[in-house]
């Protein structure tokens, strides 16, 4: 069991999501960087689809009354253990009974993932343990964690091995690769030129439903579009010309023109963006995008 002694800004139980339910109006959801959660699970000996915590910008203080085995991946946060031991990222951490793990603010990036041996034993809802905040289901009671919550862990199988993971290299400042369309044709040359040549800032109103961008307005002839299916990474342009990149918990249909879609291998990079960060876009052909393999995490035995 773990106890939430102090909640972070938005601590959410996440696994790899619930794909395949778009026709019910339910987005795929799940960890914003699934490979980072899977790596953390690997470090504690879990199945990669076990539920862990996704922690955003400012983290919780967690009590381990019976001890436990944990691992952190993703953005570095200020972190402390009550034992005084260092809190290494991307490594198996063994916590003694009664220890606390305190996470502070994110030092770089936006989100980290905490896996716990056995995995968080919240009920599956529609095939997943991921929290879906907009409709309040999944995860722990459909909400972010609060001080006083206590979460059960399933029991781990096999011996605890001390492991270290190596995150794939990341192109922090490279433009996000997008496939133009399906409605790029509704934008005039000036609108397209603005979108593809200026950096946009991530607005503080962003969340898992969408990254709201602010910058030069992307102009388009005012058009009423029929509602169309959309998916994470689709970049909508509402009438005010400020683009929105749909996120993991975004709607499954929308009526705004979609100027471009972020390619699948670059979606985890969206998870790192924090308010104020700049993003740029560059087009790539769809066949070329498909050849880009998701970068792998390497795992090695420690000592």
């Amino acid at each position: 069991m773990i106890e939430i002694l102090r909640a972070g800004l938005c601590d959410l139980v996440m696994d790899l999501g619930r794909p395949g339910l778009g026709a019910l109006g339910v987005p795929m959801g799940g960890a914003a960087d699934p490979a980072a959660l899977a790596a953390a699970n690997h470090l504690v000996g879990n199945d990669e689809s076990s539920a862990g915590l996704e922690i955003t910008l400012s983290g919780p203080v967690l009590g381990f009354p019976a001890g436990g085995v944990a691992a952190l991946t993703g953005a570095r946060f200020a972190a402390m253990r009550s034992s005084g031991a260092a809190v290494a990222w991307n490594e198996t951490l063994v916590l003694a009974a009664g220890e606390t793990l305190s996470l502070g603010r994110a030092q770089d990036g936006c989100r980290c993932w905490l896996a716990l041996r056995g995995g968080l034993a919240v009920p599956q809802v529609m095939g997943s343990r991921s929290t879906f905040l907009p409709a309040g289901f999944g995860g722990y009671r459909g909400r972010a964690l609060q001080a006083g919550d206590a979460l059960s862990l399933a029991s781990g199988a096999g011996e605890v091995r001390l492991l270290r993971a190596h995150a794939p290299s990341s192109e922090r400042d490279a433009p996000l690769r997008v496939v133009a369309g399906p409605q790029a044709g509704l934008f005039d040359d000036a609108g397209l030129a603005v979108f593809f040549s200026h950096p946009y800032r991530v607005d503080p109103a962003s969340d898992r439903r969408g990254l709201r961008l602010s910058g030069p307005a992307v102009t388009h002839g005012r058009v009423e579009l029929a509602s169309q299916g959309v998916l994470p990474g689709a970049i909508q342009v509402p009438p005010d010309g400020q683009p929105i990149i749909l996120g993991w918990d975004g709607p499954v249909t929308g009526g705004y023109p979609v100027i471009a879609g972020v390619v699948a291998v670059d979606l985890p990079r969206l998870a790192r963006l924090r308010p104020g960060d700049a993003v740029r876009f560059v087009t790539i052909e769809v066949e070329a995008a498909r050849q880009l393999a998701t970068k792998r995490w390497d795992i090695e035995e420690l000592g």
Partner: protein
Amino acid sequence: MQSSEKKPHPRVKPKTGQPSLPPTWRWVGDRGLWVATGDATLSCYFELVSRNLPEIEDVIPADGSLLLVLRQGAAPSADLRAALADPLAAAPDTCGALHEIAVEYGGAAGPDLLALAEAAGMDAHAYIHSHTAMEYTVAFLGFQPGFPYMRGLPEALHAPRRASPRVRVAAGSVGIGGAYCGIYPAGGPGGWQIIGRATADLFDPARDVPALLMPGDRVRFVPV
């Protein structure tokens, strides 16, 4: 010194990113495939779902189109191209289960009903009669889990969304958005014109089929 002349407006006409696709198909990113399906959207949807093609992770019906979500790294197969070879010529949509939905019209439950009735040149009674006389078809779900976009609204009842969305619309609210009638499964912000409230539980994630109304289902409203 450089001259202070203005830089020319950048001309970065992007490539289309949409090579070698049938004319009614478009990519949305590299995993989403938008396919125009017109009036055959539901029959194409059921056809694709029944074929259970391995490269498809999800099929999302919408207004005259489908979005296919492909598994990461997968390309559209010959089977998929064949299934959607001529969607606009496919059989017209056929319909599913009939639901009767009890609705309390007007008053606090339907704050926009009187204004809509007036705009349609009817009294409230005639408006409600007109709304309940039709059989609706669920075209697709979206906006919220379980939110049905229903076709079949009489043309006189079509109404634009509110200029300024409400901060909170009650769960069960029956609304008009353009040519569609919808029901809000959960409370929250909403821009549709609200004419009444249904007591049915439209979405319960704990049910085997969480959404009460599924694409293709038919609906009749019964005033209470």
